């Protein structure tokens, strides 16, 4: 085959679509890595026709720390704390996935109280993460009060985490067989108190943002992701469920005691930004339901099965997956003899969900790009690792 040099205007790397036949001149804008709404150091190169987005190309790598490579030089327990630093808004979930893989490999069981602690802490973190979503979504729409109110509500949960594991962001709390320490004595009372406060704040948020006409106008019909495309791109979490796919690991492959609790998985219909927003708001309420049930039947007993002096996984490949606030986070461990893994790979939900950005944005305005990016709810260190 003969190679034909591009007669088209030379496009920057990553752009695929051919030039449109329209007479207006397209131009490129570099949004990020320093930009108020790219949620960190994400860099987007936009190809624009006036205000309309023709194509978006995300560029990653600004916060790549080589966590997966570092893992090969560390023991499993040392690796555990690095997973906090991937998706910092769901560090408990990341810990949980790694612990699941190790427990499966070594046949470690978790006592009942340990499982309850895990579920309560996981669900608190889900609420906490969605509160940050609410805060950023509001701020990205220009309602700056939301960011403060969202973080105010998040603070109640953060304080509780501070009491439980001494940490506010990078928790490093779960261990194979349970958690690193027991929860405080008044744990369930404090969880109930926090749930009450968060519930009241959620009602306030509905009045502040959900019921607002401008919010609806800004989010409805914006960034529609068809069901088939959401599945094909490997999206998970609220992005996938917004498109109407009923897929939640807590229901489809229940880990821990999730099959003991009653909760529903909200689904979207249109697959637009508004659906993704409503799903996250509803998920917080469902998490509150789970917390209520868990607090009611919180058992006594040991919080962790017997600790081992060293964790040596049998040779083979081991897998653990959990449903984080952003979707499925899974860890795939290739173990050889010794205390260190041969290779660890993490599947992070943010990276897969980001793939849906370009198809969702095409034809919308720059302002919609910000809305859509906010409803993907990306965490940049989770993409780069």
């Amino acid at each position, binding site marked *: 085959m003969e190679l034909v040099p591009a007669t088209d205007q030379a496009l920057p790397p990553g752009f695929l679509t051919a030039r449109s036949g329209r007479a207006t001149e397209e131009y490129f804008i570099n949004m990020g890595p320093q*930009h108020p*709404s790219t949620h960190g150091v994400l860099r987007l190169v936009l190809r624009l026709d006036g*205000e309309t987005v023709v194509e978006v190309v995300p560029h990653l790598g600004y916060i790549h720390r080589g966590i997966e490579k570092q893992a090969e030089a560390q023991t499993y327990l040392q690796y555990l704390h690095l997973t906090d630093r991937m998706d910092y808004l769901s560090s408990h979930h990341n810990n949980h996935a790694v612990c699941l893989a190790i427990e499966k490999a070594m046949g470690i069981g978790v006592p009942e109280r340990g499982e309850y602690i895990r579920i309560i802490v996981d669900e608190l973190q889900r609420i906490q993460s969605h509160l940050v979503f609410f805060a950023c979504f509001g*701020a990205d*729409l220009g309602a700056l009060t939301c960011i403060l109110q969202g973080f105010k509500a998040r603070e109640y949960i953060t304080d509780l985490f501070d009491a439980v594991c001494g940490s506010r962001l990078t928790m490093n709390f779960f261990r194979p067989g349970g958690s690193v320490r027991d929860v405080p004595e008044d744990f369930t009372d404090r969880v109930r108190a926090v749930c009450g406060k968060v519930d009241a704040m959620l009602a306030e948020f509905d009045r*502040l943002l959900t019921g607002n006409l*401008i919010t609806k*106008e*800004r989010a409805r019909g914006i960034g529609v992701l068809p069901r088939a495309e959401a599945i094909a791109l490997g999206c998970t979490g609220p992005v996938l469920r917004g498109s109407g796919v009923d897929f939640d690991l807590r229901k489809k492959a229940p880990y821990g005691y999730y099959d003991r609790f009653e909760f529903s998985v909200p689904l979207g219909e249109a697959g637009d930004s508004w659906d993704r927003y409503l799903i996250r708001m509803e998920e917080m309420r469902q998490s509150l339901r789970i917390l209520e049930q868990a607090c009611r039947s919180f058992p006594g007993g040991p919080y962790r099965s017997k600790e081992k002096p060293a964790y040596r996984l049998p040779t083979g490949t081991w897998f653990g997956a959990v449903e984080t606030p952003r979707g499925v986070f899974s860890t795939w461990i290739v173990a050889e003899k010794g205390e260190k893994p041969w290779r660890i790979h993490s599947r992070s939900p943010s990276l897969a969900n980001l793939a849906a950005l370009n198809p969702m944005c095409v034809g919308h305005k*720059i302002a919609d790009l910000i809305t859509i990016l906010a409803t993907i709810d990306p965490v940049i260190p989770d993409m780069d690792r």
Partner: protein
Amino acid sequence: MDYIQTTNFIGDWVRGLGLPWGLDRAVNGILGALTIAGVVMAGATLLVWVERKVSALIQSRLGPMRVGPWGILQSVADILKLLVKEILVPNGADRLVYFLAPMLPLTAAFMVLAVIPFGPTLQVANPDLGVPYLIAMGGIGVLGILIGGWASNNKFSLLGSLRSGAQMVSYEISVAVILLFITLVSGTTDLRTLVLTQQGTVLDWWVFKVPGLGLAAFVLYLISSTAELNRAPFDIAEAEQEIAAGYHTEYSGMGFAMFFLAEYGNLIASAGVAATCFLGGFLPPAIGVPAVDRALFAVPGLVWFALKVAALILGYMWFRWTFPRPRVDQLMALEWKFLLPVNLGLLSLGALFTAMGWVLP
């Protein structure tokens, strides 16, 4: 309780000095300019602090607390800092236009405030065509933003300035139509006379005097002027989340400070126009009970005017910190498909009401 007899005492006092060669005119002009500059600069500096405190109140935090009591000197410190900062000029910027642009919005604020009657005897100039003059001056501010974004040689700035060009020019039409409505019902374009047509009780203010229509016009004015002021929720020209800082992305130091102060200067001007046209300007809120009214009239007109302006400004701030921002095309649709037809309808109804005499006595 009639204000018509009172005269401009500062101006008359200067004129009475008997200065030679028409110097009294020059002195009066300079005094007027200094007053307006003082009002705008002091007012804008204060409003920056108020805005930060109001937003802090709405967002459950404290706001500035360190510089002076309750942080009241914070914006003074900020302006001093901006004064000594380096002014950066981007490569390829059109230098003349780049430096001219920040001056225009502030000029517009000065020009508008020059004709606003702050009190019965406090008005720098009182042109017969006060209302058309207000409409004309509004256009100068847009020009500054348009050319500022253009001269910066930055795509984000260009986007911001083109957005604001489209937005502010559109919303100026609405503001102009509402001001014409007031001219129509009051029968005057002279701003001092416009205030004096509202003498009597609170019900004689134009917001209430034309039943229903006055209130509608007032609300529509608040919406349109927010958009014309480029304030959130209609701040698409400097939408931080979308296009960094829009038209003033490249401005630093005093260039930025001029744009920033102009926003608050124009806020005072806009609230001043609303107070003058709808809320009886410097007139006290009399209620028709002689004893109470005597007490209300004892308070100087300037105080009433300032209170009305302050209340309006707090209203502007309240919705700035509550609402999300509409998209650029939604904002244009709001103007051309909703506000403008409604305003034109309002103008026609105003003509009908005036012709039929359906006005409160």
